[in-house]
């Protein structure tokens, strides 16, 4: 049998690419090993498995009596409060985001430093921890959902304005020029060309941010800024696993429903 047919042609070699690949691999492995050093892996509670089991069994045997009892402290009303915090927070941030977005958008008619400075400001807002913002607002308006709303409203600006500014950057010049060429003023351009073209992206980004805000709003309660997080942390501290189970179930159901609805609306928009 002629074996020459069985030999495959050698793979083409690209030395530069291989070197960079290997360097990246070595650096990543070094980073991973470095991160394993100096972390205290001890201190795991001996009862860890037992508690994990208790939480899981709590999810399957939830405390149904907590779902609704009309006291305003039950699951449904807390979830409703969380939903309202997210809604109002997103609404506030969408309004604040618009001017920021136009500031940070890199379009043809602007100097590079104006959009760059806007981007840096947005990056700083985004990196400012939400929980700290919530704590600062708690000092200002007292503990409760108002602090959560304000924290969400200001924190979301960082991400929402970034998404908005990207949408503005992706706008086409054509419609603007068309409006200008038939004698439209700057206001006309914004009214009849920029806003109608921008609207679907704005709505879809805001809805997306609403999804994220729902999750954030359920966290904010952990520091006392209203919503479902507070009863959850209390239940965790008092080891009421059945209640933990029902709260987790409630959060999951709420997030899934909201995600589904906003996904449907966004699908229609595009």
């Amino acid at each position, binding site marked *: 049998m002629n074996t020459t047919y069985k030999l495959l042609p050698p793979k083409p070699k690209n030395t530069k690419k291989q070197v960079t690949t290997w360097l990246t691999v070595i650096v990543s492995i070094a*980073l*991973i090993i*470095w*991160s*394993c050093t*100096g*972390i*205290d*892996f*001890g*201190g*795991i*509670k001996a009862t*860890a498995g037992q*508690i*994990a089991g208790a*939480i899981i069994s709590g999810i399957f045997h939830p405390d149904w009596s907590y779902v609704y009892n009309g006291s305003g402290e039950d699951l449904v009303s807390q979830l*409703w*409060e969380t939903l*309202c*915090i997210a*809604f*109002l927070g997103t*609404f506030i941030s969408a309004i604040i985001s618009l001017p920021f977005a136009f500031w940070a958008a890199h379009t043809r008619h602007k100097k590079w430093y104006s959009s760059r400075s806007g981007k840096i400001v947005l*990056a*700083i807002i985004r*990196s*400012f*921890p*939400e*929980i*700290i913002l919530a*704590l*600062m*607002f708690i*000092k*200002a*308006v007292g503990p*409760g*959902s*108002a602090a*959560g*709303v*304000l924290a969400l409203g200001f924190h979301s600006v960082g991400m929402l304005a970034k998404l908005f500014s990207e949408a503005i950057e992706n706008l086409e010049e054509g419609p603007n020029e068309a409006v200008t060429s038939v004698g439209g003023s700057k206001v006309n351009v914004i009214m009849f060309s920029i806003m109608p073209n921008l609207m679907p992206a704005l709505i879809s980004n805001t809805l997306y941010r609403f999804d994220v805000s729902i*999750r*954030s709003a*359920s*966290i904010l309660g*952990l*520091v006392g800024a*209203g919503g479902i*997080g507070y009863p*959850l*942390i209390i239940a*965790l501290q008092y080891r009421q696993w059945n209640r*933990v189970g029902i709260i*987790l179930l409630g959060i*999951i159901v709420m997030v*899934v429903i909201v*995600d589904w609805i906003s996904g449907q609306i966004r699908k229609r928009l595009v």
Partner: protein
Amino acid sequence: MSKTEQDLLNLPKKKFNYMNLVWLIVIVGGLFVSINETNTHLSVLFANFSQFTDIFVQMCHPDWSYSSTVIPLLLETIKMAILGTVIGSVVAFIYSLLIARNIVKNKAVTGVLRVIMNIIRTIPDLLLGAIFVAIVGIGPVAGILALSVFTFGVVVKLFYEAIETIDPGPIEALTAVGANKLQVIHFAVLPQIMTYFISYVLYAFEINVRASTVLGYLGAGGIGLYLQQTLQVFSYDKTGTIIIFIIIAVVLIDYVSSKSREALMR
């Protein structure tokens, strides 16, 4: 001007869309309901705004001598984020291969695994932190576990969708020459999606760095614990130092990671 010319000047009427009115009512109604429910009155904010700015001004005068304490803590936080990202994405890698419909043909298996994935994805990161602190106790292990689970949720969703959009040609070619499942994955699937995977992992890492800085607030290790302590004793200058370092680290890591993601995708 004759009448026809007048008619030409009139623009065609826009059709009135009833859905827009419905949406307007929904939004305005939602606004009123939620203002009522959350008791948010801007007047309260403006009345107490001096307190807010007071804290802010104190934070803007950071205590630089505190930075020698902050930097090692920040490094520990980043270590937590790296470990969480690595563990979570390794699990996500295998899991995504199991739920991609073009690799595992059994609809029942992928369906059940997807439901589990979607449930895990809904739980926010800090909530996971709180739960893991309750399970394994206070310390960085709780944080790493929480970040792993969270990373898993982020990466798995993006990655399995990437796998499902790959070109089926190479898979068919390899199947035709008699390759088994592992060989198909190694030679047909992985070369097409490896760059996506790395880019998603970097993306998850960015989120994890942000999340890890506040996880300590709940007792899950890292710098967040000191954030809580300094806030409790009202030493806002120290809090300011911590926040400035967090912002610098997050912005730097974001920049490096987004640049390398761009380089990868080129």
